[in-house]
């Protein structure tokens, strides 16, 4: 099942044929694959027109953008926007918070849907299974504003969670007023909202596992845990690997909406992230160039993380993007 290794192998293959010279290889490849290239045409066109053609817009990170002069015509300011950002009084704090929140969300949020998919896989009753599946992905659809409204009211000083915890000696202060609790609340609610939705892809991947392997394992008397560990998990490993790579490539992109709906100035020290900082800045000034510089910084870090993750998974599981 897990035969995803090939692109790497394929490129290695290409490399060994290098003696033919680039031109020759090109001609040979084109002759062999011309229909494939034809099929690729819409995709190439799409990316060229709607992604690469507008990409010159990223230049505004290095410019002082004014609409009337346009992106090309605006004055160059070099790295001034980046310097502004890096030299900001709060730079280290928001960087630290961004990294920590991202990290915790990855650490707990990434495995959660996999565990859910594995658990669902063990359920024998078809009805309960499809019911549980359908229900678990619902919170994904409820708007963030409402979800955060619930979180706030549950964690208030007279909220449900607080009432529960006072039995265990919690002091009953509104939880979102405690800097130390912000990250746990953020990560847990993230899992609550996303677990079902993110498990769908793993559930789909589970269907590809050869059922005969389970039969054989059962014949050998393997326990359910063992089956899970030795058959199910390896069966969905390529999907896990790809999801992990993509996730890493998105690591620092913490949505600012949720942060600003949950944080307040008491919790800035643990909650203020790059996106919320730029948002507050945007309220005061119209910094297209600045926010695009910050975005570019984010993207570069993310890209590096993705490349690292790609290498890692290629070594560990032989699945990778390229």
């Amino acid at each position: 099942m897990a035969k995803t290794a090939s692109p790497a192998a394929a490129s290695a293959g290409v490399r060994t044929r290098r003696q033919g010279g680039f031109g020759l290889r090109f001609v040979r490849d084109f002759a062999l694959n011309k229909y494939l290239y034809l099929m690729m045409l819409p995709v190439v066109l799409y990316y060229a027109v709607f992604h690469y053609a507008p990409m010159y817009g990223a230049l505004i990170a290095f410019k002082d953008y004014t609409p009337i002069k346009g992106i090309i015509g605006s004055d160059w300011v070099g790295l001034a926007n980046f310097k502004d950002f890096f030299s900001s009084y709060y730079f280290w704090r928001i960087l630290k918070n961004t990294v920590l929140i991202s990290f915790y969300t990855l650490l707990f949020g990434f495995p959660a849907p996999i565990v859910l998919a594995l658990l669902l896989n063990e359920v024998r009753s078809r009805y309960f299974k499809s019911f549980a599946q359908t229900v678990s992905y619902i919170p994904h659809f409820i708007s963030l504003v409402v979800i955060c409204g619930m979180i706030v009211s549950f964690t208030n000083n007279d909220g449900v969670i607080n009432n529960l915890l006072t039995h265990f000696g919690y002091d009953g202060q509104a939880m979102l007023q405690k800097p130390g609790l912000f990250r746990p609340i953020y990560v847990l609610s993230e899992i609550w909202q996303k677990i079902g939705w993110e498990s769908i892809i793993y559930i789909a991947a589970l269907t590809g596992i050869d059922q005969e392997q389970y039969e054989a394992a059962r014949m050998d008397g393997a326990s359910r845990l063992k089956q899970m560990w030795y058959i199910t998990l390896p069966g969905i490993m390529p999907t896990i690997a790809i999801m992990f790579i993509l996730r890493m490539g998105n690591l620092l992109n913490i949505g600012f909406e949720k942060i600003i709906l949950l944080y307040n100035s008491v919790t800035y020290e643990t909650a203020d992230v790059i996106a919320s900082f730029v948002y507050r800045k945007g309220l005061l000034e119209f910094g297209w160039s600045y926010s695009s510089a910050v975005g570019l910084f984010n993207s570069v870090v993310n890209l590096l993380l993705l490349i690292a993750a790609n290498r890692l998974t290629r070594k560990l599981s032989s699945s990778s993007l390229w």
Partner: protein
Amino acid sequence: MRREFGLFDTLLGWFIHALLLVLVIVTLYPLFYVAFASFSDAGRLVAHRGFLYAPLGFSLEAYAGVFKNPGILTGYRNTLFILVFGVAVNLIVTALGAYVLSRKNVLWNNFFMIVIVLTMFFSGGLIPLYLIVKGVGLIDSLWSTIIPFAVNTFNLIIMRTAFQAVPDSLEESAKIDGANHWTILMRIIVPLSMPVIAVMILYYAVEKWNGWFYAAIFIKDHKLYPLQLILREILISNSTESMATDASNADRFQIGETIKYATIMVATVPILCVYPFVQKYFVKGVMVGALKG
């Protein structure tokens, strides 16, 4: 069929069920909350704090408030258009790309892959995109929410991974039978990847259903507004913000609170119904069956 499992396995089974049951309750609550709130009496909802176990009173006023907006029907129609044609375009283009990128021995594939992945990180922002969309003449057309978003890179990569997982042996035998790429894609790869394609349909459908940001930029004609934009209008017009200095509107703002939840119901329930159809394809052993059949 069932064999005797050990005591441990039985306990594990119970444990798993219990755990999932808790999860079901916890994740079902937001929907219940929204549903209850949407049917609640506006005045009582405003006064309420904490858990909702049932609607506070019963009132359909909020729904009346939502559906009296003349834009709702055209909104549904436009969204349906975007959904049907959008998802079709998405699937076709994504599948073609995923197929090509999943082939081995294609010289440019690694290059393509990198080029595509880069777009997840670098974009030109809103204004250049607007100019391009304007340049190709899509402004004020529903297609402006379809064509410029024909492929979601994330989905393309997932689909490619799934296509790569189809055993080579099947393709080889098809090739020997003289099948061309199109036949291999349609007759072998797609049927064997149905679970993932179902997921893609779901992902794209939800994306189209929920999308409003670009529609708000690219579409100016009110008659072409998709549902989500109409709903945002309703929300904003009933929000307290727009009534901040309003004295005689007390009733209206209280209803505004329930209308918020009614719009979420109107916006969410239809798309929730897609999942059961998608779920049909999540049956174990599809592949094995296909192989044998």
